[in-house]
């Protein structure tokens, strides 16, 4: 069963996983065309137990276990979305989005435009990202940049339980195909989440911490890393601002540029591959928009250009950490 409110709204803390579940449950209660499908989503409630309890409330017709047929059920969701449903598909590991690519890229993303705006595809794909779970190369990738590259798709990267709930509700109500990436390491993280209905609009960045000397523009898993690094930086007298774009597309360019203009330095952090990825796009936005105010070239930090290795000492160096971000920021600030 979905969590009920404990205490007042303000001090109600739930986990990221609970926030996702609550968003789905509230939207399913509100709109009977919303359904969920994916592998082991029903009785098992996903291997991460994100969806536990939804089957009991909404039944097998709306919480649907599928075969291991990512291309098939994603395609089915596209067709269902075009004809009156609001499906939410669950792709257990972000690595498996590769199997859905034709359905998402050539079908879902194109239908509205190719039909001259006549057909709509109001569907959501929920999936995961993130390394450091010792799951090796096929279960650890952060491939969200692939979808960011495709016009017609919207891409969301929540970093807190509050954002997860509000953004997922907004995604379900959106008339476009939206991909929602959850960091596997974040499911147990707790945060304040109002019990009632609210949405977070797509395309609005959030300043997670204000600062004066440097902007850490961070997405998803990297927001906590940036906040940790900011605390370390404070101890040596550097005031870091942490900005979370929250949605990759639509993108709140204005907030990113304003932050960089104010602090005059920016590091972009994202767990996807650094090459040809999200960090390149965001760095370009800032380099262009804040050019005259920058005291240093924009720096990018993302996953190393290697398949994620299994061995712990190797895996640990493939993604930015509080320590590596701290060092990069300190260097950039000349301390």
């Amino acid at each position, binding site marked *: 069963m979905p969590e009920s409110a404990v205490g007042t709204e303000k001090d109600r803390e739930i986990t990221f996983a609970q926030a996702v579940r609550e968003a789905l449950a509230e939207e399913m209660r509100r709109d009977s065309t919303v359904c969920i499908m994916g592998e082991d989503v029903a009785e*098992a409630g996903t291997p991460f137990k994100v969806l536990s309890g939804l089957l009991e409330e909404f039944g097998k017709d709306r919480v649907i276990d599928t*075969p291991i047929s990512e291309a098939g059920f994603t395609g089915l969701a596209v067709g269902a979305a075009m004809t009156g449903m609001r499906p939410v598909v669950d792709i257990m590991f972000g690595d498996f989005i590769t199997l859905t690519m034709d359905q998402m890229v050539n079908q879902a993303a194109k239908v509205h435009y190719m039909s001259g705006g006549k057909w709509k595809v109001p569907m959501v794909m929920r999936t995961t990202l993130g390394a450091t779970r*010792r799951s*090796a190369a096929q*279960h650890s990738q952060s491939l969200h940049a692939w979808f960011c590259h495709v016009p017609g798709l919207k891409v969301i990267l929540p970093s807190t339980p509050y954002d997860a709930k509000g953004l997922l509700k907004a995604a379900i109500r959106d008339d476009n195909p939206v991909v929602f990436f959850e960091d596997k390491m974040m499911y147990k993280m707790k945060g304040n989440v109002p019990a009632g209905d609210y949405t977070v609009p797509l395309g609005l960045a959030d300043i997670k911490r204000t600062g004066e000397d440097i902007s850490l523009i961070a997405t998803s898993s990297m927001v906590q890393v940036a906040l940790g690094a900011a605390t370390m930086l404070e101890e040596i007298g550097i005031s870091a601002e942490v900005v979370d774009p929250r949605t990759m597309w639509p993108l709140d360019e204005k907030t990113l540029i304003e932050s960089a203009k104010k602090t005059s330095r920016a590091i972009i952090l994202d767990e996807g591959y650094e090459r040809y990825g999200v960090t390149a796009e965001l760095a370009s936005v800032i380099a262009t928009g804040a050019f005259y105010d920058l005291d240093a070239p924009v720096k990018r930090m993302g996953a190393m250009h290697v*398949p994620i290795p*299994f061995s712990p000492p190797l895996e640990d160096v493939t993604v930015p950490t509080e320590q590596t971000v701290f060092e990069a920021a300190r260097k950039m600030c000349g301390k």
Partner: protein
Amino acid sequence: MIPSNDNPMTTATETKSSQDVALYLRMYRQMVAIRQFEAQVNDLYTRALMPGLAHLYIGEEAIAVGICEALERSDYITSTHRGHGHCLAKGASPNLMFAELLGKRAGYCKGKGGSMHIADPATGNLGANAIVCGSAGIATGAAFTAKHLKNNRVAVCFFGEGALGQGVLYEVMNLAQLFKLPVIYVCENNSYSEYTHFLETTAGEILLRATAFGLDAEDVDGQDVRAVHTTAKRLIDRARKGDGPGFILCNTYRYHGHHVGDINREYYRSKQEEHSWKTERDPILNLGKWLIEQKLADAPALELVGNELEAEMKKAVEFAVASPYPDVSEVNEDVYA
């Protein structure tokens, strides 16, 4: 795994050739080796010595063993996330496997692959795969090479019944039949894909999916290593001669959870069901009983096999625990050839 010479053999009955007897005893030993290996894996997990998770093959040993015994060392296999049994049956060394499972430099993949990605050219192992049905194309491609280079090799593609959900399987079976490729698709139906029963995800008859493409398809009791071996031998010999691909549906059961962390399973299958498979249909117990009945082995000899292999696996674990991690600088190596 090379079987040891001191076979638990007493006297062979007249009806069985000494070759057959040696095969049965080898298969017994190999199944026990896999079970003992997996017991150590579970132990490493429980003691928090193994990074990540592993998917145990316990209960399904007869399939890997029955099939790999019908292969040559130079033949190819592709394996799955539940792959330790396939790798061992094809000849992998427990030392190097444990080292890989612990992310050590000495491991088969220098620590880069882990439990789900053991690969070893020396034993024809093209690699275990963590994408369900991820290796169906690779196995079919190896058979394509075998045909073109006329090297007389066969490729075996192991997969769980969950892979029947993937469209690529049907694409490659069609290709294999069109090109008459020496590939055998081995479906290990242990009834569950993760936490879902296969009947909830699989329409129609599994075998008909293969016969629809004209593959020579057979189902077999996956708990009976001799039956698996007989079927495998027929289809492998046939494929090797150039008569085209085969499909084997093996009905089996995994005794443990989907992975080592899947402990409370009552919400998707009953303890009673687990119990009856373990006690009535265990491939090792049943082969052991049969060997004794046939007077091909006696109980103490079989017990000795278990003890020997347990000790061997413990030693292999010690080797792996003591070996060093890769140097951090190796993270960038092997990205490109």
